[in-house]
């Protein structure tokens, strides 16, 4: 897994790529929760995620719950086909807000 966190004016963007499994999900969890702890909304770009397992999904869910409690916006951007397959299997595609563009996310802030 590779990741890059960048700051926009009123939200953070976390770009993920590669394979997210049990080996990397603790790091993903830390990055997500760290960003939300600063009180900024978070958009996670998943266009280049080639694999994600339930441990990676658990990190995304924990972020979703933390953002909801803190009343921050939280979304997944350009989700890749393998990642969408896992979200669909676990019916979490109905829970997360999925965006095709960053502008769509910005309009929800």
């Amino acid at each position, binding site marked *: 897994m590779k990741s890059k966190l960048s700051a926009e004016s009123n939200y953070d963007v976390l770009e993920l790529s590669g394979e997210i499994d049990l*080996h990397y999900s603790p790091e993903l969890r830390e990055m997500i929760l760290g960003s939300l702890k600063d009180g900024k909304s978070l958009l996670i770009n998943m266009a280049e995620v080639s694999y994600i397992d339930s441990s990676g999904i658990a990190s995304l869910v*924990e972020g979703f719950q933390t953002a909801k409690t803190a009343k921050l916006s939280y979304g997944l951007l350009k989700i890749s086909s393998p990642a969408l397959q896992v979200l669909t299997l676990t019916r979490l595609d109905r829970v997360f807000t999925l965006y095709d563009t960053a502008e769509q996310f910005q309009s929800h802030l």
Partner: protein
Amino acid sequence: MAAAEKLLEFQFPATSAHLCTVREKLREVLGSCSPSEELLNCIVLAVGEACMNIIEHAYCDDDAGDIILEIEKQGDNMIFRLTDFAHRKSSKEEMKSRPLEEIRPGGLGCHIINEIMDEVQLIECNSDCGNVLQMKKKLEL
């Protein structure tokens, strides 16, 4: 019934660092059987989830050891067998899916395995320790 043809036997340490190699081996073996990209991804995911369950739940506390992944082809069916040597015995109850209405982190691995595989079976083994999990999936070519 067609005879089973063994395609792989791979023993590896039960650590998260080895999951990547397991996926590579699975893709290599399954690629030669020409399933669709979607089915291949699903099978790799399900076997990865089963390995992760062994790492996290069978081998726990100070217990550590290896996992053996065997892949067999029997007619149109692929058989995936995972053997561990953990002191803790897994139960059939643990292999059940949890209600998906509960939105919380964790506990989705068994749901994924049960959803993808046609058959999931914990095989009784006579030895004092260790578990054998067998999963079967029909290849839709």
